[in-house]
């Protein structure tokens, strides 16, 4: 965890990965994750279902942040993978595959789809990428609506889970969602700790400069785009498993992108912890205000604009700047030996 | 002669790196000042700060009696301050004539127009409808100076007049510059070529590590004295402005 071990004279600087806070933070996160696995034993099925949708938001926020926060790719078309994951699950169960296995397979298929689409959309940058991914999502949605066996435009139910009692089904879905969330967080965490993490942030800050320094921009972007395709596919498939019914207009809807942008901007773009905070906050906002309809969405939009303009590093930056806390050791920090630990701010 | 430009205790930085340090300088109406110094001495940053293209971190810039330190670059142009930037910075997809016209659109009233610029730089006349991006270095420099003149400046700042130009192009650009100066234009020019600089200017100012180390009329200084100041070798001889010894700054920093 830490690379600062050699004895150094007082006042000398050393490079550290983990401070006390991030050691406590990462231990706490591991404990929270373990505790979360026990939830279905303790809480009611309704709460379990709510927590499942919170975890789906968490996955979405983390994936969108991986794209925008680390690779500088603002996607308005991740609903392509959400819908593909959900409809992929339907398609596979219609061919007799066990639904939970189908969820996993459909997520992997989304990753493959992302790899294929990357040939097209990674040619684009900035706003062109944003709208380009959106067009792809619209095209895939139209293809799905053409297929009557997938319910056409009216929607379709997930079959094959009726054998389970509702509590058991919800618990299984919850555990699978939690497993996906943990897996994706760990994957991203490893990616950021690896040398590529620094390269990715360099790309986000200035793609051309990073390329001129020998950062191989394309493979890194591809890697994150495929990871995000996998994660968003899983989120879609798990949403289906949680609600058992989907309609193409909503599962392929651009509102998913609005949610993701809101969560990441409010939490803190380009930080590991930000999207987690954003997802929890968004879940709460949705829980209390979703019945306000249009006003609720106006509020979300205004909040996104306000955060982008006035607090571009999100709520997490407030904590990070004031308390110098970092829950997870994903950066490097200069630390004066014998001095009070102060983590440098590592994000822009 | 009236003071046209008065720089007082100016600081400018690139990030944390100081490029111009506590610099004071005055330019009077009708003067031609050659600003010399090694790479990284802060000459370009000084000109850019005066023109408003770079923020001042401290001190003031006064132009014709008004404090313009916080004024936006485009407003300084309308007051009569024009910078020919390093690297020419033409608008590559506009023609030569369009480059001139853009600058002339909000110009102060004055003698310069497309026709008078083309008279002053005859080499531009045959290429006036060519894309600026397709020109040679000398043609670009002439266009860039002409573009600055279109704003009818009272003070013309020229950064790196001959950098990257073929010798014949330098001759031609200097021919036009000399004519301008002879007409009484107030000019500050940054030039790496000392002899060139001293051949056209009334006064030579040498910068080292963001400070003025030599400021003297051209007639009162030898080329060697300027060279010494240039590299920070000891105290240059006769100077008419406060000079700090380079020894006071033992850690040379390059910007």
């Amino acid at each position, binding site marked *: 965890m830490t690379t600062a071990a050699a004895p150094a004279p007082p006042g000398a600087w050393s490079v550290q990965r983990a401070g006390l806070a991030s050691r406590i933070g990462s231990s706490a996160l591991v404990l929270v994750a373990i505790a979360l696995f026990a939830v279905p034993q303790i809480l009611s099925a309704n709460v379990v279902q709510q927590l499942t949708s919170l975890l789906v938001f968490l996955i979405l926020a983390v994936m969108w942040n991986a794209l925008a926060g680390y690779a500088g790719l603002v996607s308005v078309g991740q609903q392509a993978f959400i819908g593909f994951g959900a409809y992929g699950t339907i398609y596979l169960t219609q061919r007799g595959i066990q639904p939970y296995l189908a969820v996993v397979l459909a997520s992997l298929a989304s990753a493959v789809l992302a790899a294929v689409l990357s*040939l097209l959309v990674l*040619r684009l940058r900035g706003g062109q990428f944003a709208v380009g991914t959106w067009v792809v999502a619209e095209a895939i949605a139209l293809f799905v609506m053409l297929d009557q066996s997938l319910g056409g435009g009216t929607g379709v139910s997930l079959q094959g889970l009726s054998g389970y009692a509702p509590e058991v089904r919800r618990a299984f879905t919850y555990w699978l969602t939690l497993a996906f969330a943990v897996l994706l967080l760990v994957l991203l965490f490893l990616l950021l700790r690896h040398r590529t993490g620094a390269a990715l942030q360099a790309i986000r800050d200035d793609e051309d400069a990073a390329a001129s320094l020998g950062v191989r921009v394309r493979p890194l972007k591809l890697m994150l785009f495929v990871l995000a395709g996998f994660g968003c596919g899983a989120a879609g498939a798990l949403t289906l498993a949680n609600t058992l019914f989907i309609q193409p207009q909503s599962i392929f809807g651009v509102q998913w992108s609005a949610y993701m942008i809101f969560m990441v901007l409010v939490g803190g773009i380009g930080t590991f912890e930000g999207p987690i905070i954003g997802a929890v906050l968004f879940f709460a906002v949705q829980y209390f205000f979703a019945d306000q309809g249009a006003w609720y969405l106006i509020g979300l939009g205004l909040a996104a604009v306000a955060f982008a303009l006035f607090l571009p590093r999100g709520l997490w930056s407030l904590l990070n700047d004031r308390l110098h806390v970092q829950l997870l050791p994903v950066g490097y920090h200069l630390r004066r030996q014998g001095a009070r630990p102060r983590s440098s701010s590592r994000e822009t | 002669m009236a003071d046209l430009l008065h720089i007082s205790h100016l600081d400018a930085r690139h990030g944390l790196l100081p490029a111009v340090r506590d610099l004071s300088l005055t330019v009077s109406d009708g003067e031609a000042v050659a600003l010399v110094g090694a790479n990284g001495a802060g000459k370009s940053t000084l000109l850019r700060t005066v023109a408003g293209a770079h923020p001042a971190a401290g001190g003031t810039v006064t132009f014709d009696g008004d404090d313009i330190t916080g004024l936006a670059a485009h407003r300084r142009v309308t007051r009569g301050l024009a910078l020919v930037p390093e690297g020419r910075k033409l608008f590559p997809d506009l023609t030569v004539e*369009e480059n001139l016209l853009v600058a002339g659109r909000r110009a102060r009233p004055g003698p310069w127009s497309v026709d008078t610029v083309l008279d002053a730089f005859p080499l531009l006349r045959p290429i006036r409808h060519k894309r600026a991006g397709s020109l040679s270095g000398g043609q670009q420099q002439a266009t860039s100076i002409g573009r*600055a003149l279109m704003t009818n400046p009272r003070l013309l700042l020229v950064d790196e007049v001959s950098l990257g130009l073929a010798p014949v192009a330098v001759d031609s650009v200097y021919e036009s510059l000399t004519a301008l100066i002879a007409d009484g234009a107030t000019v500050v020019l940054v030039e790496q070529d000392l002899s060139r600089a001293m051949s056209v200017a009334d006064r030579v100012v040498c910068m080292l590590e963001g400070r003025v180390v030599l400021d003297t009329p051209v007639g009162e200084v030898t080329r060697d004295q300027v060279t010494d100041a240039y590299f920070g070798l000891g105290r240059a001889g006769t100077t008419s402005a406060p000079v700090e010894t380079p020894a006071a700054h033992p850690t040379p920093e390059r910007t």
Partner: protein
Amino acid sequence: MSWINALVQGLFLGGLYALFACGLSLLFGVMRIINLAHGDLAVLGAFGVWWVSDRADVSPFLALLAVLPVMLALGYALQRTVLARSLRGGELTPLLTTFGLAIVLQNALLQIFSPDVRSLGPSVGSLSTGSWKITDQLSVPYLGVLILAVAVGVLGALQFLLQRTGFGREMRATAQDPDTAALVGVPAASVYARAAAIAVAVAALAGTFLALHSTFDASSGPTQLVFAFEAVVIGGLGSLWGTLTGGVVLGIAQTLGAQIDPQYSILAGHLVFLVILAGPRGRFIATRRAHA
């Protein structure tokens, strides 16, 4: 023969898409911003025209004359407030703010005007329904001709503005190098604001013709943004005339797709876009500079 008719209808539809595209193209050319609220601003314009013509009981064209100056002012204010600030935040910030703005606009329109589907077609009578019958199967709709003529007129006027006027030169100079433009006296902020004003007003014009041509509701914006973007990319991000070509290609792709099966209409447009993107031209799109 019905195929030729589809081709002709596609040409006119393309005029509408080109009209949508040129505002988007202008802002991208001058500021390198893709305005994700472009479609919603167009729909806002359409609602404005609908509201004025409904309240004052006047023709939509008269109402448009009242709405256009308002949209000009709105575009100017939008740039001076939100966009100028987001431009300073880096390349991604304008995307995030314009997307947020799009969500706000859509839902505000939904809240104010209800989700009802509207059309301005009925209020212009035979202009929206009438056509010149060339043969039994080939007809040329009045409105289609009008839209195409307006699109060509607007594109031509923009082209003239950019190439032949002092303000156009300032826009092109600022697009190429805003810092140097300031050094020759061009106030980039004001040039940007006027470009945004024009883009928003043209978007409102496009929204009005959409409302005359077919129907619109509070959620029509995003689709129009996607079509506009497709037209810009198919046209090659080059000149404004390229945008017209792109719009026409998209329009024809959609009507020919619809000729096979109405369900294929929009999909056919998306596929043409993706093919262009996959082709050799796509490789240049990301790197090529747009000339406003």
